[in-house]
Structures are given as C-alpha cells and as structure tokens.
C-alpha cells in the first residue's frame, strides 16, 4: 500500500509536473467555462477552427524570431474576426467559414515546417500537447488569462446570456451585440493560445466542447451548467495530465480521452435514468390497471 502511495505521489516531487498540473487545472476550467457559451451559441466548431488557425501564426512568428504567443495571438484575432464577418454576411454559413479560414492557417504552418528543414523547435507539443513543453511563462500566461476570463463572465454574464439566447431582442434593448461577439472572439483566441502548449492545437476543440455538453446533459440550469462545465473541465484535465505522465503519453490526447469518457458516462447515466423512468411508469400503469 505504501509502495502504491509512493508511486502515485512520486510525480509530485518534480517541479515540471506540479507546473503541468496547475496549468492543466486552469486550462480545463477556463475552457470548460468558455465552452458553455460556445456550445450554446451553436458554434462548437469554432474552437477547433481557431486552434488550427493559430498554428500557422505560431510557426510564422517562430520563423521571424518573434515570441510565438504574439504571432499566434495576432493570427488568432484576425482569423476570429474573419470567421465572424464571413458568417455574418449571410451567404456563407459559420461552419464553412471556419472550415476554410482555419484550415488555411493550419496549412500555412504545416507548409512552412515541411518545406523548411532548419527548425530547431519541436512543434509536436504544440500539435498534441506535452507536459514537458509547459514552461513557467505558460503557467503565468494561463493564470492571468483565467482571471481575465472569469472576471469578464462575472461582470458581463447577463449581456452574454441575452446575446446568445435572443440576439435580436438584445440588440433592440441596447446590448451592443457586435461588440459582445468581438470581445468573445478575442477571449476565445486568447484562451486557445494560452492553452495550446498543454493540450495541443489539434485536440483543443474537444476540451472546449466536451465538458460543456456533458454539463448540458446533466442540468437545465444555466448557472449550474457554467459551474459543472468548469469543474468537469478542471477534473478531466487534471486526471489526463496526471495519467499522461504515468504512461508517458501526449497530455492533450490523454485529457481529451478523459473528457470523452466523462461524456460517455453522462450519456450512459441519462440512458439508465430514462430506462428506469420507463420501467417505473410501466409498473405504475400495470398497478393502476390491476386495482381499478
């Protein structure tokens, strides 16, 4: 027993592991929170799109010897605004806009990596996430981003709720819905960039969407959904990061597998609940029939 405890607690001796775990909890929580708005806006694909798009920016900025966060942020903002504009034009649907804009950004990154053989940086962590790739700077960035995101939603929760529930009426009532969209896009781009080292750009979408849809299946209450999604996100990211160390697997992939497992469990729970309700209903119906 003591041996098992020692094995399980052993990773906590390493500073990089503790750093990775802190980042994972923050990343999972903040993506879970943001994911609620993404899912309820019916734009689940946007996280996938944005994360792919910023990869191009990160590679380009690395080539130009600029901090990859700056390049990725600029690229993310431009992509985000472009997706919003194109999808609001009415002629192109949001999914199509995300598909073309994000894949182009990703293609730029892949093209540059494959055609230039002089890279010293390993982009594998950026693609699939790696606990070893998480730096002290990443931890500071995600901590600041988490504070900004939580503060934003506490202050502007009603405006966000009004905009995603009934955009047209919100506009009549003086909510600047275009500004809300713009700020939300910026926040999403910032979170994607702050998260990409831990999760990896190719897997990030699941971390945004999975906790939110699991929470949606568990509750009909908006506030509870926000809390549940944040908690599910943080727990699955913690578990995924921890297991990724034990199995030496990519952290992003492991976290996504945990998120997907929670979603699967929630689905099974719902099915079980429905069957249980049906059985009770059937018995009550039979009892009624026999006694009347």
């Amino acid at each position, binding site marked *: 027993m003591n041996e098992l405890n020692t094995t399980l607690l052993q990773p906590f001796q390493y500073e990089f592991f503790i750093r990775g775990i802190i980042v994972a909890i923050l990343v999972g929580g903040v993506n879970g929170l943001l994911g609620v708005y993404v899912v*309820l806006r*019916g734009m689940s694909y946007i996280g996938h799109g944005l994360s792919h798009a910023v990869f191009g920016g990160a590679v380009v900025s690395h080539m130009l010897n600029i901090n990859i966060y700056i390049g990725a942020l600029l690229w993310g903002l431009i992509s985000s605004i472009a997706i919003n504009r194109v999808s609001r034009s009415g002629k192109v649907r949001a999914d199509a806009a995300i598909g073309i804009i994000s894949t182009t950004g990703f293609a730029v990154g892949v093209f540059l990596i494959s055609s230039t053989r002089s890279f010293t940086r390993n982009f594998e962590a950026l693609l699939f996430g790696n606990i070893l790739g998480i730096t002290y700077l990443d931890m500071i960035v995600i901590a600041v981003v988490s504070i900004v995101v939580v503060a934003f939603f*506490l*202050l502007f*929760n*009603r*405006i966000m*709720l*009004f905009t*995603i*529930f*009934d955009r*047209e*009426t*919100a*506009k*009549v*009532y*003086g*909510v600047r819905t275009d500004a809300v969209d713009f700020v939300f896009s910026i926040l999403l781009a910032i979170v994607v960039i702050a998260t990409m080292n831990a999760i990896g750009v190719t897997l990030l979408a699941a971390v945004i969407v999975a906790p939110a849809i699991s929470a*949606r299946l568990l*509750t*009909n*209450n*908006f506030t509870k*959904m926000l809390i549940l999604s944040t908690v599910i996100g943080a727990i699955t990211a913690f578990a995924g990061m921890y297991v990724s160390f034990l199995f030496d697997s990519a952290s992003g992939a492991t976290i996504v597998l945990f998120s997907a497992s929670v979603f699967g469990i929630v689905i099974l729970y719902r099915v079980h609940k429905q069957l249980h309700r049906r059985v009770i209903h059937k018995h009550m119906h039979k009892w009624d029939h026999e006694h009347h």
Partner: protein
Amino acid sequence: MVAVSIKDITYGYTHAPVLERINLDVSRGEVVGLLGPNGSGKSTLLKIIAGLIKPWSGSIEFGDGMSNRPVIGYMPQVDGIDLDFPITVEEVVALGLWNRSRGVMPWHTSRYVREKVYNVLEDLGMSSKAKSQIGELSGGEQKRVFLARAIVHDPELLLLDEPTTGADPSTRDDILRMLHELNRKTKVTIILSTHDIIGVAMNLPRVVCLNKRIMVDGYAKDVLTKDNLLRVYGLIDSM
C-alpha cells in the same frame, strides 16, 4: 401627438423590395395592427421601427411626446429562438431589465428586478411557472413569457411580432385583453403584426393592411371588408 412617424420607407432583403414607400403615423397611446399575408413585410417593418434593420431609403421619427428613441419593448417571433436553451422563465423576463439587473455584486439580481419580474408574471398569470424552464412550457405560455419580457421595463413603445400566433383562442384573448388594459393604464403605444383577421385584427381599434405597400389603413370595422381583404390577400377564404 405623433409617437412614431414612418416616412417613405423602402427596404428589401435582395434586390426586390419587401416594403415600398411606406408612410405611416402612429399617435401616442394608439394600438395598431399590421395585417397581411406571409411575406407582406409586417415583421420587416417592425424590425425597421425597432432599429434592427436600416432601410434603403426613408426614415423613422419618434414624436416629441417621447425621448429621442423611446424605450422600446420588443417581442420577436418565437420560432427564431432556441427554446431548448437552459433558461428559466424568470431569467428570460429579467433579461428585459438587463441594464438594471445588478444587485450588490454584478452577477446578483437586485430586489427591484425580482419584484418587477414577479409582478409582471403575476399579471400574466405565469408566476407559478417562474422557475420552470422555457422549453417546458406550452406555446401559449411561452408567448406570455416573451410578452412579459417585452413589458417588464415599462416601455413607451411596444412592438409585437405575431404575439398570438400559435396560441389557443383563450390565450389569444387573454393576451389581447392584457394589452388593451396595459394601453389604457400606461398609454403605451402598441404596434403588433398579425395574420389573424377574426381573432386579432377585428378586436383592434386601427388596422393597417400591408402587402409590400400600405393597402388600407383605418378603423378595423371599415378596413376589414370583403373587398379590402381580397385586395390584400388575393383570396377571401381566410375569412
């Protein structure tokens, strides 16, 4: 005293206009029904008045009895809203007071808001459903909730897009009765769209028949004649 003055409005979604040279004055405290078939431009005109759509030409002026842009209460068609959204009845209504919602902390709902929401739900016979999810309600109940949100912030101008469509006759009559009472008490100006000739239009003091242009405008009893309806709808079967 004119509350809303629609001056020479023309607008279309593609190159063909949906509304053409619309001129209409609505007095303060008046109740006006926009009647016409589907696609006649009723909803579009309401959206232009609400400021959601900028017309190709023409303008909307608000009378001197109101501030520059009056406080508007708006009820959209419910079909455009995701009714599976995780939101309760009281939360929906409180959105009408979004800029007055703050309590001690930004996310806290103030007592003022809670009371206003409760009172308006009580007036519409919906207070027992305050904690229900919007998606759990019947079509008629949902109409009442969106109407509650439209009036909770004491608007000067109420724009209602098909407020009774999909409601059963009893709910429809309740909504109309409630609107007339609100208008009598507060002198709120009401413009609503409908395609229900017998249930709604006949119970309104003024009806404007619309089909791209204003075809007839006047007292309901004068407007809703066989000849006029034939001109507006091209058919009389809807009577």
